[in-house]
């Protein structure tokens, strides 16, 4: 099949995937750096290229609430947001996932205030990690496009909402070549939305979100938890189907020269691509270095991560948000839990980088690898630190 190759920013790629998935409803409120998604959708609707009902309520809290209504009526419903917008939605996110509504959010990750900062980091994405959303992260514009189409299919099959994110500004505003599917191919892949229930189905009236007291609440939550665990299977199944269509391979993460690696970093988002050239340089010097670039953060692929890292001597988990546990970044905490069951546990350190859009360059990543190398040689290294600090 011949793929069309077009120049798109991460935001445009995501907006295109949204149009191709043909939502019934799109509700949004602008926020940097995701505003371009909203304006692209507005343009599609105005030009008659998208038939969705387009709404712009007064805040993100109202966006999420309106999405809840639309989705429970049986409509395929999307939005885009980031940072404070996502944080303002937070209360409703839990209500959406509890009601098992497969709403899909496209996001360009950005820092959280204060102090105010509009640039990219993963604080907003990590802030919602207990909201029972499927959380998928993209390294570049191509990933943003592919992940969104797959995200819709996964969310609707396991009846859980999903958020597909890319690095704010770094990916969201960077023009890159993206191979796109034809409209009908993309829609055939995603398929028609078959809602689990609809409040507009007057032949089968139901009560949604009723009061659930201690006699039933836990059973409902267990069923939600099972769905998240089951999503792992669906993610792999969907990736295989997508590979047949596009030729591009996806999984829980993208390993780079990880098979024989002795030292490695675990990282999410665009930094994984920056790190690849560092690995190439290190490999020339016979340093066996590798990358585990995590794509799926929820459900967290514990076993697969442990399997992929079991032969490493030392690892650094790089977080683009702090998490403020006083111990290490959120990705560090999860990854170290994943490694707990290994017989020969690799040594691990946590490094925080790129907060509020701070540059992360090859030199900085090299310095991280120097630390991991020392760690693998049993030398003393700071366990939890920042990269690229001025102080």
């Amino acid at each position: 099949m011949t793929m069309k190759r077009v120049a798109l920013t991460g935001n445009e790629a995501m907006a295109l995937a949204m149009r191709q998935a043909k939502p019934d409803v799109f509700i949004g409120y602008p926020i940097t750096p995701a505003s371009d998604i909203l304006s692209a959708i507005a343009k599609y609707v105005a030009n008659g290229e998208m038939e969705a009902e387009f709404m712009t309520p007064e805040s993100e809290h109202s966006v999420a609430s309106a999405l809840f209504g639309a989705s429970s009526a049986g409509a395929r419903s999307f939005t885009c947001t980031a940072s404070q917008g996502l944080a303002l939605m937070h209360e409703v996110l839990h209500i959406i996932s509890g009601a098992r509504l497969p709403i899909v959010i496209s996001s360009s990750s950005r820092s959280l205030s204060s102090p105010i900062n509009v640039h990219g980091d993963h604080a907003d994405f990590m802030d919602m990690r207990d909201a029972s959303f499927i959380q998928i992260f993209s390294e570049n514009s191509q990933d943003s496009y592919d992940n969104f189409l797959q995200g819709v299919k996964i969310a609707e099959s396991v009846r859980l909402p999903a958020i597909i994110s890319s690095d704010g500004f770094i990916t969201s505003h960077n023009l890159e070549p993206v191979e796109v599917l034809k409209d009908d191919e993309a829609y055939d892949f995603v398929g028609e939305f078959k809602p689990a229930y609809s409040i507009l189905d007057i032949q089968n009236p139901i009560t949604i979100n009723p009061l659930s007291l201690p006699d039933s609440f836990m059973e409902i939550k267990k069923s939600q938890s099972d769905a998240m665990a089951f999503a792992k299977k669906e993610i792999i199944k969907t990736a295989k189907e997508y590979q047949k269509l596009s030729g591009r391979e996806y999984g829980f993460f993208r390993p780079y020269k990880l098979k024989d690696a002795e030292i490695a970093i675990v990282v999410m988002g665009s930094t994984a691509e920056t790190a690849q050239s560092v690995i190439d340089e290190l490999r020339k010097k016979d340093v066996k270095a590798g990358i585990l670039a995590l794509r799926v953060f929820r459900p967290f692929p514990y076993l697969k991560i442990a399997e992929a890292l079991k032969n490493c001597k030392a690892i650094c988990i790089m977080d683009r948000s702090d998490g403020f546990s006083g111990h290490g970044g959120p990705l560090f905490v999860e990854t170290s839990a994943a490694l707990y069951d290994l017989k020969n546990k690799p040594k691990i350190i946590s490094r925080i980088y790129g907060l509020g859009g701070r540059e992360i360059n090859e030199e900085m990543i090299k310095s991280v690898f120097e630390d991991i190398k020392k760690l693998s040689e049993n030398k003393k290294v700071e366990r939890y630190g920042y990269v690229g600090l001025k102080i």
Partner: protein
Amino acid sequence: MKKNKYFAGIIKDPGSTLKYKTYVWRDGLKPSWIKKNCTNCLTCFINCPDQAIKVDKDGNMAGHNLDYCKGCGICAQVCPAKPKAIVMKKE
């Protein structure tokens, strides 16, 4: 709809509240009405925080609705009759 009856806590049958008897919240004590002491003053009816005091069509006290009584004991406390017409007893 999914077969799992706990899926999103959705209720398919109407009138399900009728099936939900809140007496399960009661913790050990329930009120007992002693008809011969009762003066039909209905102080218990006014003070009951639920609607667990039954009143017949003539406006007379007619005992407790134990399906919804939470066993708080307010009716027994406020009963002005001597000796009392409502006492709390073990379940």
